[in-house]
């Protein structure tokens, strides 16, 4: 696609429920990142996919968080047993190594009530 697409744009869920957030990167981009941004804060790195290599999961805050990238394209970030502190905007970015910068999606605003 023309840009990085994320869905849903907004998600309200009850504490303890599982949620899935989707990221559709720019076609052909081999690198994909997930970030989390709490209100008024900077971006917190979560996980990084590069081609067929094993993902860098060093930023995942707990084992309730997981992500996968199928076929080197679409990625899904799953949060199990959501907690109120999980409320944030979850941003996805993609890039093609060797090119300038990274393209971000508009994010998914997750609210856990």
């Amino acid at each position, binding site marked *: 696609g023309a840009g990085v697409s994320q869905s849903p744009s907004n998600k309200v869920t009850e504490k303890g429920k599982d949620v899935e957030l989707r990221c559709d990167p720019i076609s052909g981009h081999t690198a994909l990142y997930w970030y989390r941004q709490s209100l008024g804060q900077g971006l917190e790195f979560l996980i990084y996919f590069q081609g067929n290599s094993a993902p860098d999961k060093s930023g995942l805050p707990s084992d309730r968080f997981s992500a996968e990238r199928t076929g080197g394209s679409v990625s899904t970030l799953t949060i199990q047993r959501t907690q109120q502190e999980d409320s944030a905007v979850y941003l996805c970015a993609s890039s*093609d190594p060797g090119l300038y*910068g990274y393209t971000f999606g*508009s994010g998914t605003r997750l609210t856990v009530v």
Partner: protein
Amino acid sequence: LAKTTQPISMDSYEGQEVNITCSHNNIATNDYITWYQQFPSQGPRFIIQGYKTKVTNEVASLFIPADRKSSTLSLPRVSLSDTAVYYCLVAPRGGADGLTFGKGTHLIIQP
């Protein structure tokens, strides 16, 4: 990963030139310096990237001294619409590692 330090906030007025400086003392040889702009409810947007000396595009200029331990984003003749958070990022081009963003600089432009 090289860490960055930026002012938390800055104020300026329409028509002025604004310079935002970022410190990155531990920058590595293969690191590039990239600046992003973020408006509320949007993802960050790429502004400019450089390795050394000066880079200029239609939006901004980026000044990098010889030791590369800092960089300055220069926005000429700002307008109200330049009010945003600006992030300085230091990483290898193409993202060999996960990107680490600081809290950025909240630039507020007043009439």
